């Protein structure tokens, strides 16, 4: 039994943490909240220079050639400080999709630039306020041309390349494919959109006969997308675990500082038990995330189940910790100037970024039904 990260992985984690503590305080996150910037460029460049973006990209494509576990420890630290950077879009989504489904040419073209951080990548699936599915995707890809509208696209304003979910004319789940599109061309127009978490830029993108090429096989986009989402769900779960721990600690510290009725508010059971519940949810989420990481790293057959568990558990933990962190702070917690808002916003962003908890619960049970035919 060795259900833990290795010493090397823990060192990497420490390195990420030290860098982020230094460069990515809540004040730094706030600069993005209060400006038009899509992300914090200095923090992003620093992460790229440290090699974190290329951690899980093979050396032949310009990466460091480590694996999923290394990405997981970095993800936890990114989540802890609610880092305002395009890491998840560029790495968990775009780079991973290319690694899994890309032809040699596509990999050679894009992975080295994503690994070094020279460019940012993203994945565009949603088309407005409804969960994307093979039944409702209106963006089309035919004869090498992409047409349609995607909204919201994470880091859509700054990304140079996008993986896009598009209708390619098949039926049922075969209706959709993933395509790769260069966002710097003429047929692409984009504008930023307002979201609940301005520390992570999102955009609307319109494609008007944009040149694109297939990622993987036509008509297999949905299956590929689900595989990419499963890997990303594990990585995002680590961000959520980091965020949960930060929100718990923020609430705990405040509860020890703040006095009411002659006592620290942290001495009241209503507060103590709330914090205990945050801790319990955090521990369950961490354990489920570890299992997800192990299966992802070993490319195990039950990735879908493990990823769904990690995601559901971590989404719930972060939801609870972030919202109750505000509650523990009282009035100050509701102000723009205080920091609990960063986790409140981020927790909901991450809860929806790969589809809601209900969707993942449904996916999980579908897997259980397959694996446990009584």
């Amino acid at each position, binding site marked *: 039994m060795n259900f*833990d990260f290795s010493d090397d992985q823990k060192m990497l984690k420490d390195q990420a943490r030290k860098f982020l503590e230094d460069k990515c305080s809540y004040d730094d996150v706030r600069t993005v909240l209060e400006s038009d910037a899509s992300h914090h460029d200095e923090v992003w460049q620093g992460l790229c220079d440290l090699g974190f973006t290329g951690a899980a990209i093979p050396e032949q494509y310009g990466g460091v050639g480590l694996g999923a576990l290394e990405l997981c420890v970095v993800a936890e630290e990114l989540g802890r400080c609610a880092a305002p950077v395009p890491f998840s879009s560029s790495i968990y989504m775009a780079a991973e999709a290319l690694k899994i489904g890309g032809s040699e040419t596509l990999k050679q073209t894009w992975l080295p630039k994503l690994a070094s951080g020279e460019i940012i990548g993203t994945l565009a699936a949603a088309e407005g306020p409804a969960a994307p599915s093979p039944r409702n995707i209106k963006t089309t890809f035919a004869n090498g041309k992409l047409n349609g509208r995607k909204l919201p696209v994470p880091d859509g304003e700054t990304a140079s390349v996008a993986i896009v979910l598009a209708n390619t004319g098949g039926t049922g789940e075969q209706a959709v494919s993933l395509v790769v599109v260069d966002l710097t061309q003429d047929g692409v127009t984009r504008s930023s959109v307002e979201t609940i978490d301005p520390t992570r830029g999102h955009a609307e993108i319109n494609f008007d006969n944009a040149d694109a090429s297939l990622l993987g096989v036509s008509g297999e986009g949905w299956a590929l997308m689900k595989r990419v989402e499963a890997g990303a769900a594990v990585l995002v779960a680590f961000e959520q675990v980091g965020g949960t721990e930060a929100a718990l600690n923020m609430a705990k510290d405040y509860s020890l500082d703040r006095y009411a009725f002659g006592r620290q508010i942290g001495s009241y059971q209503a507060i103590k038990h709330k914090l205990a519940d945050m801790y319990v949810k955090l521990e369950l989420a961490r354990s489920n995330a570890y299992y997800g990481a192990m299966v992802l790293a070993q490319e195990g057959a039950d990735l879908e189940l493990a990823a769904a568990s990690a995601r559901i558990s971590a989404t719930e933990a972060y939801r609870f910790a972030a919202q109750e962190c505000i509650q523990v702070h009282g009035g100050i917690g509701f102000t723009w100037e205080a920091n609990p808002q960063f986790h409140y916003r981020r927790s909901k962003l991450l809860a929806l970024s790969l589809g809601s908890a209900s969707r993942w619960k449904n996916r999980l049970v579908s897997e259980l039904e397959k694996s446990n035919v009584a």
Partner: protein
Amino acid sequence: MDFNDTPEEAKFRSEVREWLSANARQRDTSNAKAGVSTKSEAERLVRAKEWQAKKAEAGYAAITWPTEYGGLGGTSIQSVIYSQEEANYDVPRGFFEIGLGMCIPTMMKWATPEQNERFVKPALFGEEVWCQLFSEPAAGSDVAGLRTKCERDGDDWIINGQKVWTSGAHFCDYGIIVTRSDPTVPKHKGLTFFFLDMKTPGIEIRPIKQISGGSGFNEVFFNDVRVPDSQRLGDVGEGWKVSLTTLMNERLAIGGGSGVDYEELLKLARETELEEGPAIKDSNVREKLADWYVQSQGLKYTKFRTLTALSKGQVPGAESSIGKIVSGPKMQDLGSFAMDIQGQGGILQDGDESPMGAAFQNQWLGAAGYRIAGGTDEILRNIVSEQVLGLPQDIRVDKNVPFNELASSGKK
């Protein structure tokens, strides 16, 4: 990161497997975990004692105990490996957890070598069963507020008072008891601890019927019960310190719950028709199923993380409290929800009519007690917030007040 056994662990596992397959019957998995024994408690106790003796003979009854006490001198990991393997077999459970998990470890720490020579092995081999006489009508969570008195009489002590909720007292041979020797000092300071023979004259045991219908626990009355001073554990007035040994072990002994879980709920959801079609297609059913699956997995892998820490020589702390905080409400809610799926028929608690021998109904009733026994949900949250998170202790109005001047139920 992996779940692989080390070569030594793998060797131990295969020895255990070999021994179990030679000595026990494999669990019938098609019958789920729900298999409820229809035998009487007395019959089950006889079977449990036989099995315990066999297991102790092989060294598996107390893997982490030192060999001089009949243990295997093994590691916590080995102990877990054994439990994992034993879970696949249909063997008697219950009866010895309190004795071997809490009472005997207290004896091993506080009794004389001669006493341990006399008592440890018979307990280990299932010949003598032990109970824990702590809770009283006026002292449960606040067990240090207990009132049962002990008074010195020459070389003996005379015990008077009442214990309650004593699991197994009716079939137990020995018990550990904490009593008040001095009511004029603050509550934690005036306690004295003993072990005693449950057949001692003056002890009267009356079973209490639980809401689940069974009578696993009892009231135990003490009328001038004479106990020799040699059966005192720890110094006079130091009984709280001894109690802590027991309570620390309680946390380790209790851990996660058992019973029907997501697998059984999945089976039920597949087999039950709702108005709109099979229950398994109902999105509410699916969400709940997913939630409980995720909680079960979370607990399982939390245990694996603890084991990993153990194998690296780290000591687990109060984290293990989370097992009970999560599994108590989960058992209760899952039982309740499974009954909802059965519609009005869910009220049936009928071994023949109700799915899986009424396991969900039984669990719904039983879980209400699981959330109270061995530290309530609320007390466990206090433990986590104080011992893990470092939050302030509750304000204690009784801290420096002599016990006999305290406010208590019925005396304000």
